[in-house]
């Protein structure tokens, strides 16, 4: 291959006896031409099939050359003057291409290497995108086999613009641009748009490119017929734009969110974004429940019982009394088919063929579908956020990440910026301090002491949690019996249980915080995780006991004190939600406002309290769990939750703005968000859906109220309907049996779960393979770097040897360098994309 010739120049020409430098120029040019042709017509593809092979030969030669004929002293000669460069005192790992070492010509070439020009030069960017578009084009057009070739031959296709010889760099830029335009035209409209938008070029250039691309397209289009498919696509894109910009303009809370992020950065912002996400879930639930359950029932109200209580005001807190016979609760919904001329005295399944609405069925399927869709959305967002925050490549580069990524461009307030830079400074110092070898005194004793403290703290937390749970267990039993005795006379006493639970939820986290403070964790992230898991333990066990109380005790209660247990549970959940909200308000008032005033006025401290993101998010998750639990028993509970979240947003927002300051500790936003979404999905949503499913599956609904009265379980509503259908219409009987098979047979579930597990297993295996490839590629890059270093040293030595003819030689060597370089970036690219 012609390219291998380059190496010979460093040596006495006799050895290979090939072209003179003048010829070499020619080779270079013709090569360039070849590149131009290559990227313009893809038919010539197979000429490059030998590319990789030739390359390998070349590499071999290269190696021989390194080991046989490279004079080792060229490296050693440089050793003495190494000390002059302060950087290198720190070890041999930085034996880099320090610019100061090189002559100006070498520097010129160094700076024109593609890996460096890409960061600043427009021509280089255009040429990079030229290749990208070409790749995309091929991917869209051709079989997968071709793609392999396009990858392996990319280094040779890539045209290089050399700024060192400025004579024709401009014209080369132009041809590059033509190629890019050409490539762009051959892409579909949406691809082209995406490509153009993703280019890091200035708008003027992009505009020109777009114009050129569409101009030529018009010419070609006038001759060929208009592609109606792409036209349709364009229409869709246009309408999507208007639609998305409409949605964007309606973006909620844009200004307050910007203010928060401008002052506190992304950490605190993530709390409010999470709140917004929850709000979205509740709005969805509310809409579904409203349209399919509440609205039909409100339009055709059932008979109101005679002894309806009047509105007293306490209902807002307890949810009982006046509210109990409204669309708010399960008990109000009727168990018949709604249609226009319904005669309520017959109360039978109607056979009249009018547009009718089967309430029990609607209830059953609305709840089922709402949970199903919520589940899908949750799992989807969870997987997406996992993909973003946990990359497979887990190599250790914490300082680089800290330096490059820690600046929060959202922060705009002057004081906050000052705080931010102080924080970054201390964090960097801490990290650097950790790097230094530690002189620990008596590490074993120290470790033992720590272990003891951790054990004690955990023991205390578990004991206190267990105590609280047992307390709630007996107290709920006691209150239940008390209420039974007194009758429903004292509504206010119903509030005792929710107040107790909320009090526990308020006080115990403080205790946990204290424990964590005593334990004195070194790593802040461990501290956060320990705090989280303790709080989670508390909340899950409290909710578990409550669920047992509702579904185990009240639902199966034989006495007729509670006529409609579903409505009662709904009311309980309403009370919990409201009391939780009130306690959150109190916490905000006392924990944030009064504490701030106290520390400000009395302690005369400058520092304001920090906003505890993790605790607040956990509170939100707890509230949401209550709302999900209660949907079955009180279809309008999402509306209450929406109101609560809206109020909470404004209250928290003003409290944060007034009382708090940006957290001092670094907060890993995306990782924490992932954890919170996982928590929302796993114990919260899954737990509540298990409870709801259990209630629907195996608890007997109350006899005298609700859509499922007179049925054995709620599930039977669907079954009954199926039976009815099969009786009315014989051809539908397979459907009924399919329903029986799918819903009632556990085998289906097992098979589904099995397939799911197998898919997960395969994915984890693929991941493992990719990890291996990444390490291989990283090694490869390192080798390429060594090669580059070597070549540049050679270049420099030649330059020093042949000063008079230096100019020519550097040019030649640089072509060689560049041939080496793109391959490097090629592999590099695939390693990052993998």
């Amino acid at each position: 291959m012609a390219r291998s010739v380059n190496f010979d120049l460093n040596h006495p020409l006799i050895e290979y006896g090939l072209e003179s430098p003048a010829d070499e120029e020619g080779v270079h040019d013709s090569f360039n031409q070849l590149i131009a042709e290559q990227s313009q017509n893809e038919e010539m593809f197979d000429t490059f099939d030998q590319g990789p092979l030739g390359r390998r030969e070349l590499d071999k030669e290269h190696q021989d050359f390194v080991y046989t004929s490279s004079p080792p002293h060229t490296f050693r000669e440089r050793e003495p003057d190494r000390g002059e460069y302060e950087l290198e005192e720190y070890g041999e790992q930085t034996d880099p291409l320090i610019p100061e070492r090189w002559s100006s010509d070498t520097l010129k070439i160094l700076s024109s290497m593609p890996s460096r020009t890409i960061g600043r030069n427009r021509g280089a960017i255009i040429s990079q995108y030229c290749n990208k578009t070409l790749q995309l084009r091929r991917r869209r057009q051709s079989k997968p086999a071709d793609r392999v070739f396009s990858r392996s031959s990319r280094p040779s296709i890539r045209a290089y613009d050399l700024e060192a010889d400025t004579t024709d760099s401009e014209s080369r830029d132009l041809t590059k641009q033509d190629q890019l335009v050409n490539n762009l035209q051959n892409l579909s409209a949406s691809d082209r748009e995406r490509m153009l938008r993703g280019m890091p070029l200035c708008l003027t250039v992009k505009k020109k490119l777009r114009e050129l691309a569409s101009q030529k397209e018009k010419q070609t289009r006038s001759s060929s017929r208009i592609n109606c498919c792409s036209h349709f696509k364009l229409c869709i894109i246009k309408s999507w734009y208007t639609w998305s910009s409409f949605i964007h303009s309606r973006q909620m809370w844009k200004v307050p969110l910007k203010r928060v992020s401008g002052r506190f950065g992304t950490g605190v912002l993530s709390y409010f974004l999470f709140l917004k996400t929850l709000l979205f879930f509740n709005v969805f639930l509310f809409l579904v429940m409203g349209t399919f359950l509440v609205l039909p029932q409100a339009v055709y109200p059932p008979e109101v019982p005679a002894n309806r209580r009047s509105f007293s005001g306490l209902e807002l807190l307890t949810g009982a009394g006046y509210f109990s016979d409204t669309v708010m609760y399960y008990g109000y919904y009727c168990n018949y088919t709604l249609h226009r001329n319904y005669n309520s005295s017959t109360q039978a399944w109607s056979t009249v063929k009018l547009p009718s609405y089967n309430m029990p069925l609607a209830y059953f399927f609305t709840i089922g579908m709402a949970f199903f869709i919520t589940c899908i959305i949750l799992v989807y967002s969870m997987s997406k956020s996992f993909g973003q925050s946990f990359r497979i490549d887990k190599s250790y580069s914490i300082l680089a990440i800290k330096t490059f990524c820690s600046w929060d461009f959202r922060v705009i307030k002057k004081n906050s910026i000052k705080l931010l830079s102080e924080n970054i400074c201390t964090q960097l110092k801490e990290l650097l301090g950790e790097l230094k070898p530690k002189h620990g005194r008596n590490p074993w004793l120290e470790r033992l002491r720590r272990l003891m403290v951790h054990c004690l703290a955990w023991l205390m937390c578990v004991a206190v949690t267990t105590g609280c749970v047992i307390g709630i267990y007996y107290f709920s039993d006691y209150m239940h019996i008390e209420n039974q005795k007194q009758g429903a006379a004292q509504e206010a006493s119903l509030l005792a249980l929710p107040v107790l639970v909320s009090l526990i939820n308020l006080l115990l986290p403080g205790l946990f915080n204290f424990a964590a403070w005593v334990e004195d964790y070194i790593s802040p992230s461990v501290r956060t995780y320990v705090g989280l898991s303790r709080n989670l333990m508390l909340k899950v066990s409290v909710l578990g006991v409550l669920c047992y109380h509702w579904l185990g005790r009240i639902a199966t209660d034989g006495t007729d004190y509670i006529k409609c247990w579903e409505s009662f549970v709904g009311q309980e959940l309403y009370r919990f939600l409201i009391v939780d909200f009130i306690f959150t308000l109190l916490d905000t008032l006392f924990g944030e406002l009064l504490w701030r005033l106290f520390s400000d006025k009395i302690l005369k401290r400058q520092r304001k309290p920090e906003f505890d993101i993790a605790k607040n998010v956990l509170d939100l998750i707890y509230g949401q769990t209550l709302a999900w639990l209660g949907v079955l028993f009180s279809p309008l509970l999402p509306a209450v939750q929406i109101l609560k979240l809206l109020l909470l947003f404004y209250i928290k927002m003003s409290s944060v703005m007034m009382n708090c300051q940006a957290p001092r500790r670094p907060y890993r936003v995306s990782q924490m968000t992932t954890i919170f979404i996982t928590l929302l999905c796993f114990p919260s949503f899954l737990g509540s859906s298990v409870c709801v499913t259990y209630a629907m599956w195996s608890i007997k609904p109350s006899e005298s109220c609700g859509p499922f009265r007179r049925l054995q379980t709620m599930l039977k509503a669907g079954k009954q309907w199926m039976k009815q259908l099969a009786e009315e219409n014989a051809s539908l009987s397979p459907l009924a049996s399919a329903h029986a098979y799918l819903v009632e047979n556990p085998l289906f579930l097992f098979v589904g779960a099995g397939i799911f597990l197998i898919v997960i297993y395969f994915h984890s295996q693929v991941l493992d393979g990719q990890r291996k490839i990444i390490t291989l590629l990283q090694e490869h890059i390192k080798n390429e770097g060594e090669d580059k270093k070597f070549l540049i040293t050679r270049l420099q030595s030649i330059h020093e040897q042949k000063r008079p003819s230096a100019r020519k030689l550097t040019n030649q060597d640089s072509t060689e360098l560049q041939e080496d370089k793109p391959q490097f970036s090629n592999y590099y690219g695939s390693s990052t994309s993998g």
Partner: protein
Amino acid sequence: MGTTSSQLNKNDLSEYQELTFLTKQEILLAHKRFTELQSKEQKGVLHLRVPMEKIHSLPELKSNPFRKRICQVFSTSEDKDGSLTFEDFLDLLSAFSDSATIEIKSHYAFRIFDFDDDGTLGYGDLEKLVNCLTIPEDKQKDTEETGLTREEMKQLITNILDESDIDKDGTVNLSEFQHVISRSPDFVSSFKIVL
């Protein structure tokens, strides 16, 4: 916004929408803010440049330690004074917008951090970057004691290079930079400027 939006004709608007990551509303808002920055003579003529100092008076950029670099990177001015036309301004907002891809964001972040414009992050660039990050601006001039000490700085930069310089050429080039960025999921959410 009626008067300002009439100056931006519809074709331009849709073209901007197509070529940037901004939505229509954002472009209109940018237009409004940009015309506010223009001097009286320039008013409404969008290809005229607004000097860097004017751009820096925007509250979003006012206290940002990188504001000078940001303007220089996005400026298409030939005498490199960091002045912006409306299209440059849109470029800036597009790169810092919500929907911009991580490639675009990391590319521009790299150029912002590349203080000497040589296409790689060398020792000097990293030093300047760390200084920008750690020393509040009003203290930058009088003493360097507030930031890292000389020793710490050296060690920090050596470590950064050690971690991110994969091909070991002593500088961090664009692909290496993007590699580091891709491992920090928080970057996308924090590299944002919203008008």
